[in-house]
């Protein structure tokens, strides 16, 4: 049998290039025997031309029009033979109507990037000014996709066991104090160098701020007061959904970012750490009608964007345009994209930025049964991926607790953040709400379980944990918008002085508050997440919207690992505490009843006295609860009793823990009122508590272990 296919021969020629009709699927550019198959969709273009460049050359070396017989339906597909896939960059010119009021914005003078491009050139080295006169900025390239994964696969850690660490690739190791080699600072390779730190911290999942190719120069400007360059630093504005950001790779200048990123995933997995990507499908980097032509606008504006009846861009994202996610073509692109990252990059989960937009119809109206969200929930390739929604958008849709979940989606629980912040700050009347929050918010997720709730106090949006206890108000002057940007409802408290201080009393109180937050987060049912650097007191100087800063307002300052070693030690131990106690990580809600007849219900609430929670007193700032370890994992696993007492009143209060079954004693695992290292004890060395009475200092949390 001949070993060569008979369709590897050209049938057409153009200016010396051998061609044949291509295959319409898969979309994008694929390596085929002897050549490259190019496939691109447009529903309204009248003609399409493939534009080919040699790498790093300004002008194309050939422009090949798609012959009539190369178009099938709305797809232009052509195989070009004899190209060196590593050396070629490609784009498209589309001709068609210029009629903005009807949604058409074709412009044959623009060279357009393939939305399915898996490698994108043009911004290989972070912060290096591109040639602004370039006719084609974000240049599509090809990849082999033949990474040697050996035995790696996604970890499929049960979601209830996750402890998530939200981090920014560049910020994590950009600072010289990271100890990472100069070339690898701020890159995927830099994170690999720091995996031992993550292991010691004890987290088992990292969630990366956007890593899809974006343009740090988008809306870049100079802060007039400081003279500093402001960037699109966080990257919440996608240029290409299928390509890892080149300048996040030490090897980006050699176009090896795909391999470098895959190696990061492989090494994280080897360390038992999952990786979740923060994905931004609600809008693109093309902005509104005044924005640039990068890709979608020139390929098929009307299909890819939500447009007003007059042909302007709906702006539910707050950034100029809105991706038309529930159009069948766009829906398939999103699905193709996530499948690619799950299958080819072994990604463990996705967090969807402004996910409520994904539930809007092409005319902007919220859908009760959004096809995209349903499809993602039931997709076979994504079946074991974590799907996490940021369940609101900038168009006023707020769906925390009501996001269309299909028993599959989890969501950032913004109400957890707000409620716990207020409670720890010392606001009265919150004990009822807090009792729900620490159970995984059964009042919100009754049918979904605590695993629907990603619990967090801090995330990239807003104050860091240190700033949350150091500032009453935002201080966003460095952003160059007269302190008008960023949220005003921070529920923060500065502990008596706005900003940095040497006052020992204030400093001690701040550290205690940080520990209170960490302790409550780690004993709550649901999935805890905290922000990179919170464990070492990272500060943004009161800035609660640092999206534009490529400096210490975002970077992890590794000298703080030494300076704030007491905080780090507390975090390491409280994370270990959660990991050691399955009763804190249930898939289903605790019931408050003793349904297995074990003598004590799975969870019980208490006040300063056992069995007497103070639900009715509107001034109450104290709450205690106890979980019965025999009910861990619904009674399938044995664990200790755990009693948590929270005193958010400013003075010390006596608490009495419930009596334990005969033969058991209470041990003090955590007392945030104590100085380090007596604030937290490692497993099995916790001191015994004589009797059940304990004096809780003002604004402090005590955790007892009964065994």
């Amino acid at each position, binding site marked *: 049998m001949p070993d060569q296919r008979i369709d590897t021969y050209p049938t057409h020629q153009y200016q010396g290039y051998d061609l044949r009709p291509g295959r319409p699927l898969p979309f994008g550019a694929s390596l085929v025997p002897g050549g490259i198959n190019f496939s691109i969709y447009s529903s309204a273009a009248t003609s399409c031309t493939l534009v080919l460049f040699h790498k790093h050359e300004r002008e194309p070396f050939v422009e090949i029009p798609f012959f009539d017989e190369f178009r099938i339906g709305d797809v232009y597909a052509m195989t070009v033979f004899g190209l060196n896939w590593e050396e070629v960059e490609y784009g498209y010119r589309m001709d068609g109507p210029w009629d903005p009021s009807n949604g058409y914005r074709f412009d044959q003078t623009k060279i357009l990037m393939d939305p399915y491009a898996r490698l994108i050139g043009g911004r290989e080295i972070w912060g290096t000014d591109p040639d602004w006169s370039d006719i084609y900025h974000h240049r599509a390239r090809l990849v082999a996709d033949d990474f040697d994964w050996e035995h790696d696969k996604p970890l499929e850690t049960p979601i209830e066991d996750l402890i998530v660490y939200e981090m920014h690739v560049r910020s994590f190791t950009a600072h010289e104090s990271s100890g990472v080699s100069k*070339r*690898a600072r701020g890159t995927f*390779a830099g994170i690999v160098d720091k995996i031992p730190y993550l292991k010691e911290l004890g987290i088992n999942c990292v969630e990366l701020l956007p890593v899809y190719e974006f343009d740090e120069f988008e809306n870049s400007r100079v802060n007039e007061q400081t003279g500093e360059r402001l960037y699109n630093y966080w990257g919440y504005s996608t240029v290409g959904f299928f390509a890892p950001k080149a300048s996040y790779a030490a*090897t980006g200048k050699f176009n*090896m970012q795909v391999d470098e990123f895959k*190696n990061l995933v492989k090494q994280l997995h080897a360390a038992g750490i999952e990786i979740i990507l923060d994905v931004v499908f609600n809008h693109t980097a093309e902005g509104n009608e005044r924005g640039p032509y990068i890709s979608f606008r020139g390929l098929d504006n009307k299909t890819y964007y939500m447009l007003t009846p007059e042909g302007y861009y709906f702006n539910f994202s707050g950034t100029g345009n809105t991706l038309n996610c529930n159009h069948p073509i766009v829906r398939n692109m999103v699905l193709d994209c996530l499948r690619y990252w799950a299958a080819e990059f072994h990604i463990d989960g996705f967090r969807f930025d402004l996910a409520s937009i994904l539930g809007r119809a092409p005319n902007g109206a919220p859908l009760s049964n959004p096809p995209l969200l349903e499809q993602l929930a039931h997709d076979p390739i994504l079946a074991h991926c974590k799907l996490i929604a940021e369940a609101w958008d900038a168009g006023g849709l707020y769906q925390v607790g009501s996001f269309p979940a299909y028993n599959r989606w989890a969501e950032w629980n913004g109400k957890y953040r707000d409620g716990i912040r207020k409670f720890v700050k010392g606001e009265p009347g919150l004990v009822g709400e807090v009792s729900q929050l620490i159970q995984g918010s059964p009042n919100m997720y009754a049918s979904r379980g605590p695993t629907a709730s990603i619990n967090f106090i801090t995330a990239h949006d807003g104050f860091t944990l240190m700033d949350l206890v150091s500032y009453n108000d935002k201080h966003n002057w460095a952003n160059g918008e007269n302190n008008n940007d960023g949220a005003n409802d921070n529920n923060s408290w500065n502990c008596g002085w706005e900003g940095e201080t040497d006052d020992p009393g204030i400093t001690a109180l701040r550290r205690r508050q940080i520990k209170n937050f960490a302790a409550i987060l780690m004993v709550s049912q649901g999935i805890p997440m905290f922000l990179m650097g919170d464990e070492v007191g990272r500060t943004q100087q009161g800035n609660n919207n640092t999206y534009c800063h490529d400096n210490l307002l975002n970077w992890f300052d590794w000298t703080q690992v030494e300076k704030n070693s007491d905080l780090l030690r507390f975090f390491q131990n409280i994370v270990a505490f959660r990991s050691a106690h399955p009763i804190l990580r249930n898939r289903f809600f605790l019931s408050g009843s003793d349904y297995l007849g074990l003598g004590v219900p799975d969870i019980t609430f208490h006040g300063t006295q056992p069995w007497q929670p103070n639900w009715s007193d509107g001034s109450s700032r104290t709450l205690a609860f106890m979980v019965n370890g025999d009910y861990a994992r619904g009674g399938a696993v044995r664990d200790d009793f755990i009693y948590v007492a929270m005193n958010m009143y400013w003075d010390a209060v006596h608490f009495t823990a419930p009596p334990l079954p005969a033969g058991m004693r209470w041990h003090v695992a955590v007392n945030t009122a104590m100085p380090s290292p007596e604030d937290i004890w490692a497993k099995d060395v916790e001191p015994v508590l004589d009797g059940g009475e304990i004096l809780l200092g003002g604004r402090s949390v005590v955790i007892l272990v009964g065994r």
Partner: protein
Amino acid sequence: MALSVNVTEQTGYSIAAVVGDVDGATAPELQEAVLAAAGPGCRLLLDMSQVAYMSSAGLRVMLLLYRQISANAGSKVVLVGLPEDVQETMAATGFLKFFVIADTLEDGAAALNR
């Protein structure tokens, strides 16, 4: 820049010296020469000290080489004199730890015997 691969036989092992740039255009030549020199039971020093530039296609040849020697028990290859750029690229992408590397031919020959 053109690429050449010069294979010389030593007592008990061979040396393949690569000279030139390895990119998409020259990688097929490297692949042919190196895979031929790394047959079953080979003991090979791949001298990379005169490679100024290696692209992803070149690194893929290295990985093919690794896969070929892993499939044949008794085969052994040592990479000698990897330029710093290439070595860092291989480290950042996780490829470096697949290989035994040495700074000089002498060290490489010693590594073959370890």
